[in-house]
């Protein structure tokens, strides 16, 4: 446990250092974008000093790190608000969207993988494999554009911007609108949040679903050829039971591990998809921050993504150990 905590700490420290240095080395100066037309060199220098950008990078990082360890991540240059507050206000939207997209991906990919494995060599498998290849080849933001056109313009089934119908009055106590509306029985809000999230979640989840389908199919084929499955068949179990009760549980571990990694990448995909759907999450905030070269905000957002990546991987590791008796035993 201690080793894990130390590893996490070191990783975050490394990420923060790399991002801090990179953002100050790459072209694009936030102060240059703010210099008023009549500013004198002294005025410009005052602006640099105001944002603490007049010191050497090492000193700037030291100041940032000591403040960050106290839970202070500074003030956004462009939004003039507390960075931590901004990130925490937007994070729940992205987490709900990501979780929804992952749920869709697992459901669609899982069904496709099982179908393809069970119909191996026949046309349904060929169809599923072809569809998976196509879906995987198209990036998430392109799916987003396709869904905007299909569901937003042609058929007008779904809203294509925002997170909730702005006309709905909902006295939310948290940023988790979907979860909270469910708990409070506000079905109108739940429906609105779902309808707003469906298209972006599909755009994010489809490429992951294709990946899940392919890996699950391969694992299932391996499992279906194993002795214990042969034994189950000889025992006279129905093909469906053999598939779902015998082969599937054993094929899940690699799929689960892959899903963890994919979930982390999926969250990275929210940057473009959220912008496309005007979804007020941390992804769209990231674009805003980068365009404005809002250094404190970029730093906090990247760190948040890093924490999410690490947390997801730790959870997947724990889940894999829990699901796999051999790993569980080795852990003891």
């Amino acid at each position: 446990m201690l080793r894990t905590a130390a590893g996490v700490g070191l990783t975050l420290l490394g990420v923060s250092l790399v991002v801090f240095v990179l953002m100050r080395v790459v072209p694009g100066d936030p102060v240059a974008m703010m210099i008023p037309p009549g500013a004198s060199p002294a005025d410009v220098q005052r602006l640099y000093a105001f944002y603490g950008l007049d010191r050497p990078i090492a000193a700037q990082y030291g100041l940032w790190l000591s403040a960050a360890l106290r839970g202070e991540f500074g003030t956004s240059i462009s939004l003039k608000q507390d960075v931590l507050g901004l990130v925490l206000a937007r994070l729940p939207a992205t987490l709900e969207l990501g979780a929804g997209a992952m749920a869709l991906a697992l459901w669609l990919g899982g069904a496709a993988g099982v179908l393809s494995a069970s119909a191996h060599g026949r046309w349904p498998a060929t169809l599923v494999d072809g569809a998976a290849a196509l879906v995987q080849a198209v990036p998430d933001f392109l799916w987003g554009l396709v869904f905007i056109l299909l569901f937003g313009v042609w058929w007008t089934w779904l809203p294509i911007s925002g997170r909730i119908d702005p006309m709905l009055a909902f006295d939310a106590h948290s940023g988790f609108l979907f979860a909270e509306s469910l708990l409070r029985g506000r079905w109108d809000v739940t429906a609105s949040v779902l309808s707003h999230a469906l298209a972006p979640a599909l755009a994010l989840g489809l490429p992951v679903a294709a990946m899940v389908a392919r890996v699950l199919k391969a694992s299932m084929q391996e499992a279906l050829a194993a002795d214990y499955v042969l034994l189950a068949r000889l025992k006279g179990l129905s093909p469906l039971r053999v598939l779902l009760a015998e082969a599937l549980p054993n094929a899940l571990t690699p799929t689960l591990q892959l899903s963890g990694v994919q979930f982390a990448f999926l969250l990275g995909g929210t940057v473009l998809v959220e912008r496309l759907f005007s979804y007020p999450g941390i992804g769209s905030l990231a674009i805003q921050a980068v365009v404005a070269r809002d250094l404190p905000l970029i730093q906090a957002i990247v760190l948040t993504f890093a924490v999410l990546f690490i947390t997801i991987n730790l959870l997947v590791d724990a889940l894999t150990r829990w699901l796999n008796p051999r790993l569980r035993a080795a852990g003891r």
Partner: protein
Amino acid sequence: MTQPKSMPMPKHQPTHQPTPQCAQRRRFLHQSGLAIAALGGSGPLAALAQTQGTLTMAYNVDLPSWDPTVGPSAVNPTIQSLYKAVFAQFIDQNADLSLRPDLLTKWGWNADKTQVSLTVRSGAKWHDGTPVTAEDVAWSLRRAGDSKTGNPIQFLWSKLANIQAQGDTVTADVKEYEPALFKWMAFLTGYVLPKAYFEKVGPAGFEKKPVGCGPYQVLEFVQGSHLKLQAFKDYAGPRPAFETVLVKFTTDPSARVAELQAGRSDLTLEVPYEEAERLKAKGFGASIAPVSDIGMIFLSNVGPMRDDKVRQALAMAIDKKGLAGKLLKGHVKPIDTLQAPGYAAFDASITAPFDPKKAAALMAEAGYTRDKPLRFKVQTTRGFKPKDFEVMQAVAGMWKAIGAEVELEVYEVAKHFELRAQHKLAPAAFYNWGNAIGDPSTSTGFAMFSHSPHSAWKDPKGLDAMIGPLWGEKDEARRIAGYKAVDRHIAAHALVIPLFQYSQTVVYRKGLKFTPHGAGFVLPQAVGRA
């Protein structure tokens, strides 16, 4: 932020609730068809934007801050339309950029221009119901000139001192004469804020619950998502056509077009010219009108650009009319100075003719031919302004024909500003220049004066000697004539290459009326019913 229990508001993002009463809220919800909009499906959702009394706008930028006088958003031209819906300026602007009263009904200098006198409109009220006073105006001016508040135009406002309010009049001493002072009062950061309220709640409280005296008050604001405005019943000016306005922050242009096509928004702006034409053909209303924004090629006085003949040749080689007609479908106007038509110092007689033969001859005189070309780097944005990269590719082709081979480098907006401030732009660099007040000091002045951090051509002896005296010129006719002379000098020596005046696209559903504004404002209060 505390909220009355009778007015449930989302707390998931920063929200604002000014003074609307419960009944207003219910009317708002009733008018906007809340009851049918929640459960999805095409019918109710598509009907949302059509709700009577509500104007839904798909807006191209998010609103970063509610204080229109400080921070980067204070100098972002696109955000000004939203600020102008909620706050009043000292002075307002007509569509042709001329000035008209806003909170000030009269303004002027004394005889020797050492004092200003401002008359404040009587009867105006803040959104919290308190009266707007001359002291609010005086305090706003004092605050703008205070370096501690972070007003980006503080250098200008600080030219006023001893700002006093008496009755409905505000007077101030002029420390340093600023010819465009009153124009600036209709421009960036020229807003009047409520002194008593601001001092009571502080900057953070003001961000949470902004109070202005403009035609709309803020009903709800969810950063990154939407803004709800409600017509202010005590507004001193004409009542807007729409009782409520819903602004959806939709930064992606394709999503904005989809919003309009799907009937979820009534109006959107800043879509590509082709999209505006296409939507117009489909029956939408579309305005593609010139605004105070130009595209230009900054030339830096480095390397080959020091040669007068090279610069003149490069300028002469560009077929602006051809580019405007073929590449930009006639939606931009070719210009030869940094003044667009309608600007105070625009002079149609100053021209930079297209003459590729003479351009090639000048290049040959400078020692460059197609076989022995001049090579240099050119920077350009891509997708920032209409067809910017394509225009610069075409320009590169035109330059190649006269013996100049260029390497095109795409840069981001942030990088442009950094390089410009450090005087490290490539010898030629494409960018735009907005000038909502149309004054020559805010175009030629700031773009070409060496001491300006935004100039690329640094000529402390020649050009500065011409521009320098104009900053404080008290005779307006002489000042304008002076800038015209500067522009003529710049055009003759090709110290910068102005390209086009851009147009702004605004597309809206049938049944709406939109009047374009020269400064590019898309004001909710200026949208009416056809």
